[in-house]
């Protein structure tokens, strides 16, 4: 058993060391640290807490990236073998479930922990910059390592349980969403409910639930380490509970692996069985790739209808909370509720778009259908546009809900959100999807977390100029007595963003696609 596990483990690490891409990912992290350093220096200019700001920024982003790695990298540890139909071969080679989970998952965990370790020397700069002690830096890394171990093993559980990578990623995403989303949701509901509505016992039980979930919350622990070091512990509850849960996930994955991957009677995999349950898709449309991507990549009518319904439920839930707080029923969200719903929709839409962008072109490579597509009498530009349209169609429910909430609650949003901010978000969204599509042609797993990283950096680098152009155009228009200068300013911003930012990425994607075709 150990020989098999060691061979699998060594092979994975060797592959990781030989390929260029993992090293590029690590180099990107180093550059990101440099960026954080610059941001922190700017933020804390003139104060003595630059180190604290810098380190806080690094920690926050690591928490987010580890979560993103959970739904993209760790989650495919076992399911990639199921996707490729090679899982049975591993079993035939005499590998036990323990050897498989150890070899496939632990190697990824070690490789990712190395990524964390590689950042440590840089972050000790924070001590020199001031505002933080070396003990705090080490404690934060211990917390992040525990978080990574937990996420990796939770993802392993999803990977072992689900029949393919897409479902495993979905399951891991939902778990993480519930993990992060449940405590604030429960607190919001409890705060909104008037005192006396619930019995003290129920209120107490409900208020304990967020505390319980936050026992393993890395954000909470890091906040404690950075801001209340006197009460923080290096190996505190977060560390031990994370390890305990991780061990639990690992054990269940190992013990149930064979049962969860047992072939069905007719030899069909879960994916095949799942495919039989889908709705009929009708005849292919005049734009075939729009049809293909909408129905067979982005979830089709099922997910389309689910999205409409889900947002309706969320909207009604927000209306309910609003009723409790305002004590009167309204069909339109107002005040903070409108803003929160809008942010939720914008965030979900961004995530949906980035996830679809990472998968759309990559799914063709994975299924090896890119050479068949290349033989079609369609230019690559048209092909990319059609694929984008197919994905865009699937996110229509979120986009329509976003527009509806913005219009219905516009009186509450005036003063908080202006046109320039919306334009900046749209351009950043388009930029992120471009980056995601490009990265998905280079790397299989890291496209999603790397896009988040790139978008985070891009937000600071690009948002400034994007916001500046409309202001400058507006100023110029005023000096020349030009009325209604805003559309002109937006048109100029969109044009220059496309020329300077999006067009180079589009050309790069096209070149890379052609290179992959020739391979």
């Amino acid at each position: 058993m150990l020989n098999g596990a060691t061979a699998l483990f060594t092979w994975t690490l060797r592959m990781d060391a030989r390929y260029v891409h993992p090293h590029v990912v690590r180099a990107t992290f180093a550059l990101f640290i440099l960026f954080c350093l610059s941001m922190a220096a700017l933020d804390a200019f003139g104060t003595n807490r630059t180190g604290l700001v810098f380190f806080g920024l690094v920690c926050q982003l690591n928490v987010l990236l580890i979560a993103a790695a959970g739904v993209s990298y760790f989650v495919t540890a076992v399911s990639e073998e199921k996707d490729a139909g090679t899982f049975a071969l591993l079993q035939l080679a005499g590998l036990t479930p323990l050897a498989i989970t150890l070899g496939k998952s632990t190697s990824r965990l070690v490789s990712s922990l190395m990524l964390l370790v590689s950042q440590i020397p840089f972050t000790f700069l924070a001590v020199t910059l001031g505002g933080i002690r070396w003990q705090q830096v080490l404690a934060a890394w211990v917390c992040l390592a525990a978080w990574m171990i937990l996420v990796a093993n939770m993802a392993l559980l999803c990977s072992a349980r689900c029949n393919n990578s897409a479902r495993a990623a979905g399951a891991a995403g939902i778990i993480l969403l519930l993990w992060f989303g449940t405590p604030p949701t429960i607190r919001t509901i409890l705060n909104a409910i008037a005192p006396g509505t619930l019995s003290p016992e129920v209120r107490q039980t409900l208020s304990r639930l967020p505390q319980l979930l936050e026992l393993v919350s890395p954000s909470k622990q890091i906040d404690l380490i950075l801001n209340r070091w006197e009460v923080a512990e290096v190996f505190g509850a977060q560390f031990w509970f994370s390890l305990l849960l991780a061990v639990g996930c690992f054990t269940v994955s190992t013990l149930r692996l064979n049962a969860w991957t047992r072939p069905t009677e007719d030899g069909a995999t879960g994916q095949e069985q799942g495919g039989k349950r889908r709705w009929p898709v009708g005849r292919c449309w005049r734009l075939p790739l729009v049809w293909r991507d909408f129905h067979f990549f982005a979830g089709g009518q099922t997910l389309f209808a689910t999205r409409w319904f889900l947002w309706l439920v969320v909207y009604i839930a927000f209306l309910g909370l609003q009723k409790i707080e305002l004590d009167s029923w309204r069909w339109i969200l107002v005040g903070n509720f409108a803003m929160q719903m809008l942010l939720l929709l914008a965030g979900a839409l961004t995530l949906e778009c980035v996830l679809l962008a990472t998968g759309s072109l990559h799914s063709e490579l994975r299924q090896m259908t890119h050479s068949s597509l290349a033989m079609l009498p369609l230019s690559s530009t048209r092909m990319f546009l059609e694929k984008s349209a197919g994905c865009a169609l699937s996110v229509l429910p979120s986009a329509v809900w976003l527009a509806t909430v913005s219009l219905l609650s516009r009186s509450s949003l005036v003063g908080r959100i202006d046109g320039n901010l919306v334009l900046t978000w749209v351009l950043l969204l388009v930029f992120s999807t471009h980056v995601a599509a490009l990265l998905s042609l280079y790397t299989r797993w890291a496209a999603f977390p790397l896009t988040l990283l790139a978008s985070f950096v891009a937000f600071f680098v690009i948002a400034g100029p994007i916001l500046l152009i409309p202001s400058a155009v507006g100023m110029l228009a005023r000096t020349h007595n030009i009325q209604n200068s805003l559309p002109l300013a937006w048109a100029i911003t969109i044009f220059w963003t496309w020329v300077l930012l999006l067009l180079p990425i589009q050309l790069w994607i096209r070149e890379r696609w052609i290179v992959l075709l020739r391979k």
Partner: protein
Amino acid sequence: MLQFDRDTVPAISVSRLSHAFRGHLALNDVTFCVMPQTLHGFVGPNGAGKTTTLKVICTLLRQGRGEVEVFGSNVRTDPAAVRRRIGYMPDHFSMYRQMTVTEYLDFFAAAYGLPLQRRDQVISDVLTLTDMDGRRDDLISGLSRGMQQRVSLARVLVHDPDLLLLDEPASGLDPRARIELMEILRELRRLGKTVLISSHILSELSELCDSVTILDRGQVRFSGPMNLLLDVPGEQPLWNLRLLQPYPQAAEQLRSLPAIAEVTEPEFTNGQDFVLRLAEGTSGNDLLRALAPLDLPIASVARQRRHLNDAFMDLTTRGVR
């Protein structure tokens, strides 16, 4: 042997084609020609450059040097015209496995711009041709490998191409599926298609193909009609003679003929089979004329041929050291 007019435009004309990958010369001065409405075998060991050549012909790969034309259109300067006339089936299963057979074919038919009304007819035709009519509503992921290969073949036929480029279509198929695939290919030739088929299954190629190109280490070792390749090389050709029943004086009578230089009786044939080596300058016709007056109960006379395996080994082992 097939005869063509001098004016016939070849379906594929590859002239002095060379291509290098990262300094390694994958194709070196490759020249061959495939005539229309023929089945042309493309044979070679792994890594010989077969897939690279096919990719250049189907415009997926831009050649380093040389000229490649498909029905007179240059693949470099007029790739769109070339693509309209070819159907390429790669050596790997490149399919949308979550689609049904009809959805898959409908998608490609729509992508080739076929109007909705025509699509039904085309899909029905290609499914009948590939004998997949009964599985049209099945998910591709639930089909066997042989059936998936048939669907792949149906896919390349939806836009009615004149030339089919099939890269290892029979690999991984069981004998029944292979034989059925070969039947479909014969039918396609009968329908006027030109087929370039790359394969390792030499026994089937020798029966199926009109012509063949053998590629080894990026170089053409042989290209021409199958008959020419299978003739036993050197000296005078050998002929096999079989009698209806044993005939005691047969060997003597045969040796007495001036058209025959040597008569041998293979072991364990009970005096019914003979191998004849013809005399210098004697043709097959001369032999038949010489045999006619003899009082022998002849069952068959056939020129002895090599097996394609032997020809392949002779031609490709040279480079191996």
